[in-house]
Structures are given as structure tokens and as C-alpha cells.
């Protein structure tokens, strides 16, 4: 419990510290230290869960499903923090933001982490909602940090779209609460996930159906499902790069986590109606559409960060599809994909940050010859993209392998659009990547002081996952699978 509390509230304290007192010099370091502490605490928490099972209380609940997401979030936060210290110093030095901006950045970074961890660890759907909304509020100022017209526009769109979406989600939550009123003994528990999950089968299907629609549209906006995705590329591309890394790597995961939790409830309530898999079909539909559309978007990109945010949409679509598909194999694959995608995508964004420094622009047409200029960055980008494109021996391949085969077993004909989508997306990524990494160096392009350690760690982990999934992790994922679909894989 203490570990849990520490994990969740350390970032909050950190946010206050960074906002109020910290002198700017040490802010970056303090950021790292706090993230490190959070990560350590989350590890301890993970050990507790692994040994003692669920940790619950004070309307917190950490089970096998969210504990590994907690660890992942804390970890990515740590590595991103490590990356962002020199990066933001550089940005500050280049005069794009003021000292107030820096202070804001660090505070909001930790605040964002707090909301993420809170959303993941809470047991109360209302608090979950509050936390996700809080995440929007915490990041929206960071998106407009650079104060360029584009940045402000992106922030506005992000704010409006996600605000509306989240409002709809709240309506869904209200409906859920309403549905829970007359099945639960204590109405006050109407939003406690654990209590609801126990009585899922009694919840009135009609209301639950409506509720799920609102919740899906609401949280789906956050996940970046087409056609509610439009905020995502803007926000990712205009914010500072560390922000993009955590947005792509974490925020989307958390939103998807919420959707999956709710799907579990709805499946329970719809179980004995004439359309028991309604929720699953909805997810599959949204997932497939997002996956294909995002793949096509990749072909017409001019901005490197936008490109990779579309690739995030694509992968989110893939996971959504898999969760909708249901079944232990698909779910296992989706959970694994969550993991590897977060690691890989944040690594890519970190590399992209360096790349944009080298070239001094985000425009794909002006980033050239990275490998010759700075092999570390060039190869980091190349390998990262190879990994995200699903090439073994990287882990993304493993999860995609599982997803494809699961689809093959249950819905063979869906494999065709999946394959087409994969091929299209792949072509879209590499046609832009090639000229950026290869080729001759434009004159006057010089290497920058880059810290590729996080990238190295992330890609190393992804490689490890691709070659062999360590026992404890597969155990975790398996128990999470049991939690979600009832039956495990192993």
C-alpha cells in the first residue's frame, strides 16, 4: 500500500516542488530523481502484487492488468526525463521558451505523470474520469509551450476535442452509475470498478449499451480512434518532443486501458442478450478503420513528428482491434503490443528529437543524411522504425505475429485487411525514412550533443522481448489475460 501511495503521489509532490521552489538549474535533475523514485516504488509495488496478489484500499486497486502498465509508465517517464534534461536545456538556450516555460514544463511533466498513475491505479471510474481529464489539462499548456501560431492552434484543437470527448465519457459514466444504482446494495459504490465487475451480469443491458457508446466515443477520442483522432497529430507534432514521447507512449495506453476495463463490464452485462459481442465488434470496427486510415495517412506526411503520431494511431487501432477480437491469444498479444509499442514509440520520438536538432527543422524534406552526420541518431531512427514496422527480432513482431495468428484462427477473412494495412503503413514509413537517414549530408549540417542512452535501453528491451519473453512478464501478461477474458493462455 505504501509503495502504491508513494508511486502515485510522489509525482504530485514533485510537481509542487518543481512548480514552486526549485531553481531552474537543478530542475532537470530533480525531475529525473523524482521519476527514478517513482519507478523504484512502482517496482516494489510490482513485487508486492506478484507475490501477494491484488493491492486494494482507499479506492485504489492494483491488479495484474494495471500493475505492469504502472511500471511501464513510470519507466518511460524516467527515461524520457533523462532525455528531456539536456533536450530542454538546448531548447531553452535556443530561446524558444522562457524560464517560466521551463518551470511550467517540469511541473506539468510530473503532474501529467501523477494523473496517468492515478488513472491507472484508481478503483473508481469517476476518479478515473477526473484523472484522464486532468491529464488533458496538464498537457494542453505544454502543447502550446512554444507559443507559435501552430502550437496554439494545436493546443486549442486538442483541448476542445478532448474536452468534448471527455464530457461525453462523463455522461457515459453517469449512465453507468445510474445502471448500477439498483443492482448494488450500497449506491455509493456505484462507480467502484471492483464492485461493478462482481455484478456485471445483472447490469441492465440497454443502459449499459448506451453508456458504453458514450464511454467509447469519449475515451476513444483520447485513444485516437478514427474519426475522433484529428487532435492527435497536431498535439504530438507541435508540443516539445519529450511530451510527444509520453503522449504517444503513455496517454494513449491509459485511455485504451479505460476502454478495455469498461468493455469487460459491458461484456458481462450484454452476455445473455441477443448481441453479446456488441462491444467487441465496435472495438474491432474502430480499430480496423483507424489502422487502415492511419496507414494511408503515413504516405502524405511532410512533418516527421506528425508521421510518427499517425503511426501511433495505427498501432492503437491494431490493439483496439485485438482487444475487440477477444480470446486469450489476441488479448495476450494486445497487452504485449501495448508494452512494446510504448517502448519503441517513445524511443523513436526521442531519436526524432535529436534528428530535428541536427536538421534544425521537422520537415521531412529537409532532414537528410542522418547516418553520415551522426551515425548514432541515424541508426537509432532506422532501427527504431524497423522495430515499429514489425521486423524481428524486435518485440513488435512477436505481438503482431500473435495478433495475426489469433485473427487467422477466429476471423480468417480479417487477416486480409490487416496484411494490406501493415504493408501500406510499412511503405508509408520507409518511403519517408529512407531519404532522411541515408544519402549525402547537406552542407553545414553538424552533429549535436545527443544522449542516446534511453533509446539504447528501450530498443534493447524491445529486442529482448522479441527474442524471448521473460518468465515473470509472460506470467503477468497471462494473469492479465485471465482477468480480461476469463481464460489464460499458458
Amino acid at each position, binding site marked *: 500500500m505504501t509503495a502504491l501511495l508513494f508511486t502515485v503521489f510522489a509525482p504530485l509532490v514533485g510537481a509542487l516542488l518543481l512548480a514552486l521552489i526549485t531553481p531552474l538549474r537543478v530542475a532537470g535533475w530533480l525531475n529525473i530523481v523524482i521519476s527514478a523514485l517513482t519507478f523504484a516504488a512502482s517496482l516494489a509495488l510490482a513485487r508486492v502484487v506478484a507475490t501477494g496478489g491484488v493491492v486494494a484500499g482507499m479506492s485504489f486497486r492494483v491488479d495484474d492488468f494495471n500493475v505492469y502498465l504502472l511500471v511501464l509508465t513510470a519507466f518511460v517517464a524516467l527515461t524520457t526525463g533523462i532525455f528531456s534534461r539536456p533536450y530542454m536545456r538546448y531548447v531553452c538556450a535556443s530561446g524558444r521558451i522562457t524560464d517560466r516555460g521551463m518551470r511550467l514544463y517540469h511541473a506539468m511533466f510530473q503532474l501529467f505523470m501523477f494523473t496517468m498513475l492515478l488513472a491507472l491505479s484508481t478503483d473508481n471510474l469517476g476518479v478515473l474520469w477526473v484523472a484522464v481529464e486532468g491529464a488533458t489539462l496538464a498537457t494542453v499548456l505544454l502543447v502550446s509551450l512554444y507559443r507559435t501560431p501552430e502550437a496554439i492552434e494545436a493546443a486549442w*484543437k486538442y483541448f476542445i476535442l478532448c474536452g468534448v470527448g471527455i464530457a461525453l465519457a462523463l455522461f457515459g459514466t453517469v449512465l453507468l452509475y445510474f445502471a448500477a444504482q439498483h443492482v448494488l446494495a450500497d449506491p455509493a459504490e456505484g462507480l467502484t470498478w471492483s464492485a461493478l465487475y462482481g455484478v456485471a451480469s445483472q447490469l441492465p443491458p440497454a443502459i449499459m*449499451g448506451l453508456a458504453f457508446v458514450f464511454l467509447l*466515443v469519449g475515451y476513444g477520442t483520447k485513444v485516437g480512434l478514427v*474519426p475522433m483522432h*484529428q487532435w492527435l497529430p497536431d498535439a504530438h507534432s507541435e508540443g516539445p518532443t519529450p511530451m510527444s514521447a509520453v503522449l504517444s507512449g503513455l496517454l494513449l495506453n491509459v485511455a485504451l486501458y479505460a476502454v478495455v476495463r469498461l468493455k469487460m463490464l459491458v461484456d458481462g452485462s450484454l452476455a445473455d442478450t441477443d448481441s453479446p459481442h456488441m462491444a467487441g465488434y465496435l472495438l474491432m470496427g474502430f480499430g480496423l478503420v483507424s489502422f487502415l486510415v492511419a496507414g494511408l495517412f503515413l*504516405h502524405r506526411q511532410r512533418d516527421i513528428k506528425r508521421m510518427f503520431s499517425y503511426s501511433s494511431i495505427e498501432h492503437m487501432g491494431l490493439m483496439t482491434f485485438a482487444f475487440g477480437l477477444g480470446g486469450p491469444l489476441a488479448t495476450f498479444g494486445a497487452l504485449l503490443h501495448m508494452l512494446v509499442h510504448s517502448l519503441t514509440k517513445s524511443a523513436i520520438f526521442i531519436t526524432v528529437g535529436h534528428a530535428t536538432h541536427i536538421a534544425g527543422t521537422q520537415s521531412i524534406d529537409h532532414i537528410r543524411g542522418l547516418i553520415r552526420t551522426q551515425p548514432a541518431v541515424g541508426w537509432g531512427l532506422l532501427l527504431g522504425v524497423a522495430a515499429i514496422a514489425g521486423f524481428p527480432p524486435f518485440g513488435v513482431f512477436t505481438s503482431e505475429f500473435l495478433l495475426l495468428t489469433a485473427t*487467422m484462427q477466429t476471423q480468417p477473412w480479417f487477416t486480409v485487411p490487416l496484411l494490406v494495412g*501493415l504493408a501500406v503503413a510499412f511503405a508509408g514509413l520507409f518511403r519517408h525514412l529512407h531519404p532522411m537517414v541515408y544519402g549525402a549530408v547537406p552542407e553545414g549540417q553538424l552533429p549535436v550533443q545527443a544522449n542516446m542512452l534511453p533509446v539504447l535501453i528501450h530498443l534493447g528491451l524491445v529486442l529482448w522481448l522479441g527474442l524471448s519473453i521473460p518468465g515473470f512478464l509472460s506470467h503477468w501478461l497471462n494473469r492479465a489475460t485471465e482477468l480480461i477474458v476469463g481464460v489464460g493462455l499458458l
Partner: protein
Amino acid sequence: MSPLWLAGLAVGLALMSALVALFSARVTHLLRTLSLPLFALAGLAALAAGLLTLVQGEVTTAQLPLGLPWLPWQVRLDALSGFFLCVIGVVSFAVGIYGSGYVRGLEHGRDSLPVLGGFTGLFLTGMLLVVLADDAFMFMVAWELMSLSSYFLVAFHHDQAANRRAAFLYLLMAHVGGLSILLGYGVLAAFGDGFAFDAMRAGELSFGWASVAFVLAFIGFGMKAGLVPLHVWLPEAHPVAPSHISALMSGVMLKVAVYGFIRFVFDLIGDIHWQWGVAVLVIGSISALMGVLYALMQQDIKRLLAYSSVENIGIIFIGLGLALLFLATGHKGLGVVAFVAALYHTINHALFKGLLFLGAGAVLHSAHERNLEQMGGLLRRMPWTGVFFLIGCLSISALPPFNGFVSEWLTFQAALQAWQLDSGVLRSLVPITAAVLALTGALAAACFVKVYGVAFLGQARSRHVRRARGVPLSMRAGQGVLALLCLLLGIFPTSVIALLDVVPLQVLGQGLSQATAHGWLWLTPISSETASYGAPLVAIILALILAAGLWLFGRGIRRVRRCDAWDCGFAPPTPAMQYTASAFAQPIRQLFGSLFYIEEGIKPQPDGRQRYQLQVVDRAWGLFYLPVARAVERAARQVVRLQSGNVRIYLGWSLATLLILLWIMA
């Protein structure tokens, strides 16, 4: 020392060579002195493992603590794997030796040696693991590792945009092919519950699903093997890699694709249907013919060799198609003959295509030239390479007593047994294939007369070629090994077939014992009265008569007076007056003109002079690839309208989605 242990050693050595290469950024000579020798050793170990497996003829399996939690990597070494280990090993060995001389030229360039060495090692690792894999997951991992690392090698000289384009095309098609293979395995796994190959063998498929799986596998492996019309990446990608890598890709990687196809279709899928045989036969014939015709049209020597790989892969698939046909119609013995013919051509092509690419590399290394039109007279400037290259040309043109002839002979023998088939359609289809094969052989001969005559004979057509000198010993040795093997496999086919007899025995359940029944002198695939080929005798007699002739006129050898060329009494010819490569191919180009897009004519050059220019474009582009690309572009252009930029429209989307979903739900 079990063969599996040796194979593991080979993998380990390959990884070590990759690892060592990483340090060659500081110590440049490390690649030459340590990494590539390790690579050669890995090849040797693989060769030993393969030979041992073939000799012992028993299956060994193992498990690795890698892979999925419920499916650790399964490793299995049977005769088929053993045979392909030999193929991989022998070429890798030669390449390892050759490379240590070849990379010397790169040491002072700005291309990074660690990339070259590292991915070369990984490339070999991938190929070895593919052959060893016994479950679909490990197979796919190894397969894609092979593709990915070879892609990095193709992109090694990434300064020219053309090379980048080639690499992109290669990776894209490799990816698509990989996905299709994955799906094929998915079908098998769905029926045989499980990704271990044993589970798949157990699975029972209906004809429909089996055909789906077959088509997927055929597309996937055919794309890697370079079957028409999936070949377009091959002539782009193979030439731009460093030459010893081209040798590996054309010589070995394509064979790994053949291995995959054999493993999938002959071993895993279960019952074979004759329709597949017809499909493979037709595609194989088309590939063979188109491959050699396009090869004839090329002026870039490495491109030419790449296209001729398409041709030879076509010949291999003709053999496999015949095998499928015969097996499906119950003529097992004949199926085995065709199967063995395909295997024999597989190793032959590995040997002589490797040899030829190494030779082209030697030329590139010392003359810095890939364009045939600039070459000439290299035989006298680099005699060793010249002789080895000649042997390669003779072998690939299927001329006795070299190895290429043996496999083609076997294929013909199999095709000539078509009269045993019951269906008249098939009976008349097979002879046409034989005709195509004959035509292909003749055209291949023409093609390599052109290559050798233009490149190595006559007079140098450019200054830098005139300055070409011999290449270092290691490079000569690398070529020598392969050249020698080409000759040996041509002279002693009986022993070779006796060695790989165990492969059909394990895969198809029947050997080819009758082929070697009449002693090592006589090769009698079906029966001694049907057909026989005394390869050693032919070689001996040829040698004898030659010796006799030389002895007879031996005294005359001193009595040759040098003079100007007579040339019907015209003025002594200058290099510019020689027949060029494109001129040589002109009659054939005119005859088959309808098969290509040909753009030729006199075009003004930047330097103001008029010059004849010839462009022969692959028709497959316009037919299959550009339409797809355009379709994707069009779809993308439609889709981006979603991102109109107006927040109100975005909100409208959300509202619409919400309403529609609510309507569906209620």
C-alpha cells in the same frame, strides 16, 4: 561431434564474426583479418554439419530457451536442412576467403565497416537459422532477420539515390512476402493446432484451405526467390550490394527461399495436388525464359547476373513443378528424379552464380567498372579471374562436362517421362516446358558468350579498364574453390547424387538408388537403357583428345607468328570498332522485342555530342507495380481530407459518430 553441434558452432561463429566486425570502426583491418575469416570458418562448420547429416542420414532435434513462453524455439536438422546447410556453407566459405581481400578496397572509403561486417554475420546467422528452424515462429524470426540484414547490406552504398530506391523496394517486397508466408503458416497452424512443424505435419487440410496455404507460400517464397512477376526487386537489389554480398544473396539467399518452399509444400502441407504442379511449372518456365531474355538485354554485368539468377530459379522451379506433378499423379519414382534434379540445380546455381558474382566483383575491384560496354581484354590483364569466370560461364550455360549441364540433363530426363502421365493435357504441357528449357539453355549460352566475349576478350574499351591488374591471392582463392567445385560436380554427378539421395528418402519416402546402380561412371536416373550419362568418361575423353591434339601440334606452339588482325584486309581494328554488348544482343532484342519496353535512339549528350542510347525496361513494372502504387496514392489523397484542419468539422465528426453509434445500439 553431432551435426547439430556443428551447426550450432556455425551459428556461433557467424555471430562472433558480426560481433568482431563492430570493433573494426577503430581497427580497420579487423574486418579483414578476423571477422571474415571467422565468417569463412562458420561456412566451413555449416558445410561439415550438412555433409555429416547427409552421410549419417538421421534427424537430430533440440530446443532453445528463446521464443514464446509456450513455444520455445525448436531446432531440427534433417537431410533437407543438411543439404541446404551444405549450399550455404560452401558459398559462405568461399565468400569469407574472397571478402577478406575485397573489403581492403573499402577500408579507406567513408562507408562504415562495422555495418558491412556486422550485418554480413547476421545475414549468415539468419540463413542458417531459417534452415534449422522447426517451428513457424523461429522460422519467421530467422527469415526476417535474413531479409533485414541483407537489406542493410543492399543499402550499404547509399549515396546514390538509385541504390536507396533499390533497398526500399527490396525491403518492401521482402516484408510483403514475409507476411504472406506468415499467413501461410497461420493456415497450417489453424488446422494442425500449433506452430511446431510436427503439429503442422499432423494437420489435415481440405483441398481448398491447402490451396490457400500453397498460394500464400508460393507468393511469399516466390517473391524472395525472384519468380516472375515478383522478381523486380532482385535485379535492383543484388547488383548494388558489395560484390561478395551479391554472391551471397544470389547464390545462397535465393536457395533459402527454395528451401522454404520445399519445406512448406513437400513436407508440411500434406497431400499434394497436381494443379499446384501446373502452376509451379508454368511460373517456373516463364521465369526461366523472361529471366534469360532480360539478362541478354543488360549492359551492367551485375544486373545481368541478377537477371540470370531469375532464370536459374525458374529452372529450379520447373524441376519442382515436375516433381509436384509426378508425385500428385502417383509416379513417385519420377517425382524423385525431378526433385533431385531441382536440388542438383540448386547447389549448382549456388556455386556458379557465386563464382560469377565474385568474378564480377574482382573486375569491379581492379577495373572499377560494371558496365560491359567499357570493358574488354581483361583475360590478359587478370588471367586467373579470367579462367575462373570462363568456368563459371561454361557451367551456367549448361555445357558438359561442367555441373550446370548435369542438372539440366536430369530435368530433361524427368520431363521426357511425361508419356507416363495419364492426362493428355499434362502430357502435352510438359514437353512444351522442355522446349522452353531448351530455348532457355541456348539463350543463356548466347548471354554468357556475350559477357565473356565483351568483358574478357577483345581489347579494352576504356582507359581505367586498360589499367586493370590481377587481384590479391585471397580473392583468387575464393573464386578458385568455387570453380573447382563446379568442375567436380560436373564430372562426378553419380557420387553427388549418391550423397544427397537421403534427402528425397526422408522428404518423399523414396530414394534414387537406381541412378547410381551402375557404378560411379554411369548416371542412370531412370534406367540404364532409358538414359545414361558417363560424365567422367566424357571429361576423360575430352581431356585425352585435347592432350593428343596439343601433343601432335605441340611443336607448333612455338611456331606462331604474331601480326596485325587481318579483318578482311581493312585497317587494323581499333577498340572502338569492336562489337559492343548491345550490338551483340541486337538480333535477339529484335526477335523478342515485343516482350520489353525498348527505348533506343540517338540522343544528344550533355557534352553536346550525339550518342546512341538504349533503354530496356521490365514490362512487369507497368503491368503489376505502378497500378498498385497509384491506387495507394489515390486512396491516401482521399483519406487526408479527414484532416481538413477545421476544428468544427472535427467536432462534427465526433457528433456524427456518437449519433450513429447510439442509433446502432438502441
